[in-house]
């Protein structure tokens, strides 16, 4: 087991290096001279050279990359061009909020998909099963930013039940109940795709299991349906956990659009603002940070899978 | 008669790759194999699964590179030919593969499966199709099948397509690697008969590979018995079948239900023990771990190739003393 962990961790290093290279190159393809965004319009040629030197832009690309990588490893993500703040600090708070939203969305989608998925596997002719089918199809087709707008239109504007922006009410003193209320709509919107994917997956996994010999034997022995259900759930846990783990990764990375609609102060919102202000250090660091989290989450899923299902270790 | 094809001391081993591409060891698939095929004769190769029959065929076809040895076609080593010379020889030696479900392209029509070889050799498409049709007819497929796709054909019919494809380049030598083992018994008989007929009609020399002793007996003039990548016995088919010498050949003949009654005069022991791993084959004689007549000498040197009678050799220490070939029975 220890060897397996070590192997997986070692294999992650080239991936992470590759990620940093791509993120670094991303900034290189930005059209126009980055110096222009820093200098005032009336800057002289001397000013320009000085700034270029300060930023190390006169160095070869490889040197630039290495020094950028070095700074990044030390946790120095540079300064926001517009906000004039440490990108690191900005990102750290935003990441926390993104996590909160991802947890909310995961909570909503995992539980609902489990209920709908298992139920419709058991009762394929019921209306819930048809509903599950619809959810599955809708989930993978609906743009989540549109779902967000629809939810706001209905629940905030027309019905006035739930807030539509931010993490807390005016004044910010609402406490955790206030935050929960703010979380509901974004969580639903962000969790839509996951709900669809997981409902489909859970249903087909459970249907497969219900046809397995051991379930038929249990039935023949006269086991209660509760006991059978427990057996089935136990057997599909590894699959569900793996998919759930990956989906959580997508929720972290994929909520950019939902965050912007709800003005949820997460990484997505930060990146959105940065795009309109052409604040590239933030975009770069944001993409990098989320990707690293994504890679780590995938690693955790792999390891978890190996713990539950020892066959994986030897594959 | 002249030898049209000769193998001289052919060896091939495959590296086995482990984690991160490290070589964990090698499989000695074919080791120091020599054979000869006479013009318009049939050489049968028998042996258990994994003994290197297909590897030998692939080596002859130059589908894989030999480690050592030569393959002489009409006296010329073809293993280091390149370019157009290689192309010429390729046309002379064609192969029919084991699995008719894998050996023809399901996405090309029957006729294009056959014609492909031709148009790859510069024949215009129209002409290639005409010729393909001729050979489809020769292997007994109705014309109406030509534009069908392989999925609508039975295994036997597919194998006929594969044979037509091998013949369309007008080869002199055809290597049939387990060409009938995937077919039903009744279909097997038809295809074997087809091979016999085609051989006469097109003056072919055949190398017929099979693990089925009856099939090989029916087809071959000469027989070569292989075990774990090595030749243990070879000679005229009649001799080998009536008077097998190597303990492995004897064991092999014992383990099949004989077609003729009263034929099995040999002692009735099946081959005992497991087939050793080809990754580290036994030293000396590779059969010694399972041989009922094993002696101390077997583990030492390589067994000598003893000539039992003209053209009939067995690689076994039991026959080492010249003129004392009746040690057994």
């Amino acid at each position, binding site marked *: 087991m220890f060897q397996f962990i070590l192997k997986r961790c070692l294999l992650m290093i080239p991936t992470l290096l590759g990620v940093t290279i791509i993120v670094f190159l991303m900034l290189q393809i930005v059209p126009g001279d980055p110096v222009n965004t820093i200098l005032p319009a009336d800057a002289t040629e001397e000013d320009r050279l000085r700034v270029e030197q300060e930023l190390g832009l006169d160095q070869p690309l490889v040197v630039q990359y290495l020094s950028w990588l070095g700074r990044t490893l030390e946790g120095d993500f540079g300064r926001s061009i517009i906000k004039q703040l440490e990108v690191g600090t900005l990102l750290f708070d935003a990441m926390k909020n993104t996590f909160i939203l991802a947890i909310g969305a995961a909570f909503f989608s995992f539980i609902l998909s489990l209920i709908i998925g298992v139920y419709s596997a058991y009762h394929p002719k019921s209306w819930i099963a048809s509903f599950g089918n619809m959810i599955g199809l809708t989930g993978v087709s609906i743009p989540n930013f549109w779902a967000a707008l629809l939810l706001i239109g209905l629940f905030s504007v027309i019905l006035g039940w739930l807030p539509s922006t931010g993490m807390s009410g005016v004044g910010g003193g609402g406490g955790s109940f206030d935050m929960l209320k703010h979380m509901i709509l974004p969580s639903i919107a962000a969790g839509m795709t996951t709900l669809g994917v997981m409902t489909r997956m859970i249903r087909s996994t459970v249907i497969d299991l219900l046809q397995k010999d051991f379930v038929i034997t249990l039935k023949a022995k006269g086991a209660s349906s509760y006991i059978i259900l427990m057996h089935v759930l136990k057997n599909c846990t590894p699959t569900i956990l793996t998919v759930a783990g990956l989906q959580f990764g997508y929720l972290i*990375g994929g909520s950019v659009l939902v965050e912007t609609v709800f003005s949820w102060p997460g990484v997505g919102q930060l990146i959105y603002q940065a795009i309109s202000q052409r604040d590239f250090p933030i975009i770069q660091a944001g993409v990098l940070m989320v990707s690293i989290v994504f890679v780590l989450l995938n690693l955790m899923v792999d390891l978890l899978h190996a713990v539950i299902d020892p066959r994986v270790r030897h594959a | 008669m002249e030898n049209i094809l000769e193998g001289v001391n052919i060896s091939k081993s495959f590296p086995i790759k482990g984690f991160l591409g490290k070589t964990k060891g090698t499989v000695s698939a074919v080791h120091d194999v020599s054979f000869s095929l006479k013009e318009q004769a049939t050489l049968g190769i028998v042996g258990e699964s994994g003994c290197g029959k297909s590897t030998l065929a692939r080596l002859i076809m130059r589908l894989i590179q030999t480690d050592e040895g030569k393959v002489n076609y009409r006296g010329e080593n073809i293993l280091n030919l390149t370019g157009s010379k290689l192309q010429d020889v390729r046309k002379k030696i064609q192969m029919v593969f084991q699995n008719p479900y894998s050996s023809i392209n399901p996405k090309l029509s029957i006729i294009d499966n056959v014609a492909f070889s031709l148009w790859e050799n510069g024949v215009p498409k129209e002409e290639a199709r005409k010729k393909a049709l001729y050979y489809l007819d020769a292997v007994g497929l109705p014309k109406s099948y030509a534009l069908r796709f392989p999925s609508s054909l039975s295994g036997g019919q597919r194998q006929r397509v594969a044979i037509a494809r091998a013949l369309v380049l007008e080869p002199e030598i055809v290597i049939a690697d387990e060409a009938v083992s995937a077919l039903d018994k009744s279909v097997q008989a038809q295809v074997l008969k087809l091979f016999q007929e085609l051989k006469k009609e097109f003056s072919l020399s055949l190398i017929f590979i099979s693990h089925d002793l009856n099939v090989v007996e029916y087809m071959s003039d000469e027989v070569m018995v292989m075990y774990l990548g090595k030749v243990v016995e070879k000679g005229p088919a009649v001799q080998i079948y009536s008077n097998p010498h190597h303990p492995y050949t004897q064991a092999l003949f014992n383990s099949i239900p004989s077609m003729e009654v009263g034929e099995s005069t040999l002692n009735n022991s099946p081959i005992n023990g497991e087939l050793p791993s080809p990754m580290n084959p036994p030293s000396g004689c590779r059969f010694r771990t399972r041989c009922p007549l094993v002696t101390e000498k077997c583990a030492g040197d390589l067994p000598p190739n003893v000539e039992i009678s003209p053209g009939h050799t067995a690689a076994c220490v039991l026959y080492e003393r010249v003129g004392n070939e009746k040690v057994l029975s």
Partner: protein
Amino acid sequence: MITENTGQLSNPVILNKEEKEDSRFKEFSRRFLKNRPAFLALILLGIIVISTIMAPIIAPYDPYEGEITNRLQVIGAEGHILGTDEQGRDILSRILYGGQLSLLAGIVPVLIAGLIGGSLGVMAGYFGGMINTIIMRTLDIFYAFPAILLAIGISAALGQGIDNIIIAISIVFIPPVARIAESAVKEVREEEFIEAARTTGAKNFSIIRYHILMNIFSRVFVYCTTQISISLVLASGLSFLGLGVSPPTAEWGVMLNNLKEQIFINPLVTVIPGLFIFISALTINLVADGFRDALEIKQ
């Protein structure tokens, strides 16, 4: 490649055309037509696509001209079936014109990724060894990014514009297409007909063309069709973030972006553009599922 195939068959050197075997295409259509939802989805999708292409003819208004006094009309308003937007422009007309770009941004990246990713995958799968390692390990790195974030990063760096969105999404889709193609090629490469072709001295190029491509085509094709809906949603998402066309050009994503500010005045104003993205993606998904089932491909 499919037309290529039938093209060869229609060469009636010997046989009359009646006996020509095009039953495989018939079989495919028969299976597909039996799949009701997929068939209906194809019709609906066809209507949407054709309407957007014919926008200049059938659109009731100029998509760029609107009266500000007539803004934010609700659905079903007089003269404007789908209402008007924040500048009083007819939403139906803008939807029709905007659909051209939106649908294009859904399809083109998949085409590009299909070509580039497919070629890379075929090369990696066919030649194996070092070539495989270099291509596939490099592409693996892209899996470390959440797709949407990678697309955002690239198109933000390239700058605003639908063309840059298309480039960004193409890059995102190349690795998965390459993976599918590579694993399909690896499977086909083991088949004996590849060896048989090599014994005839066929060149790599012809082996790939006649034996490999034809056998992996349907798998890669089906995979690509399932990606079109994702590409469509992704493209409209990037556009929604303001990375796509610049106003006043119409495009579904950017329409949503412009209208989202008005949601507190007219809560249903965002329904229509989003609905078109959604319906298009949904029908594409259904059609892709239909293709997959009709071609009997398991993924």
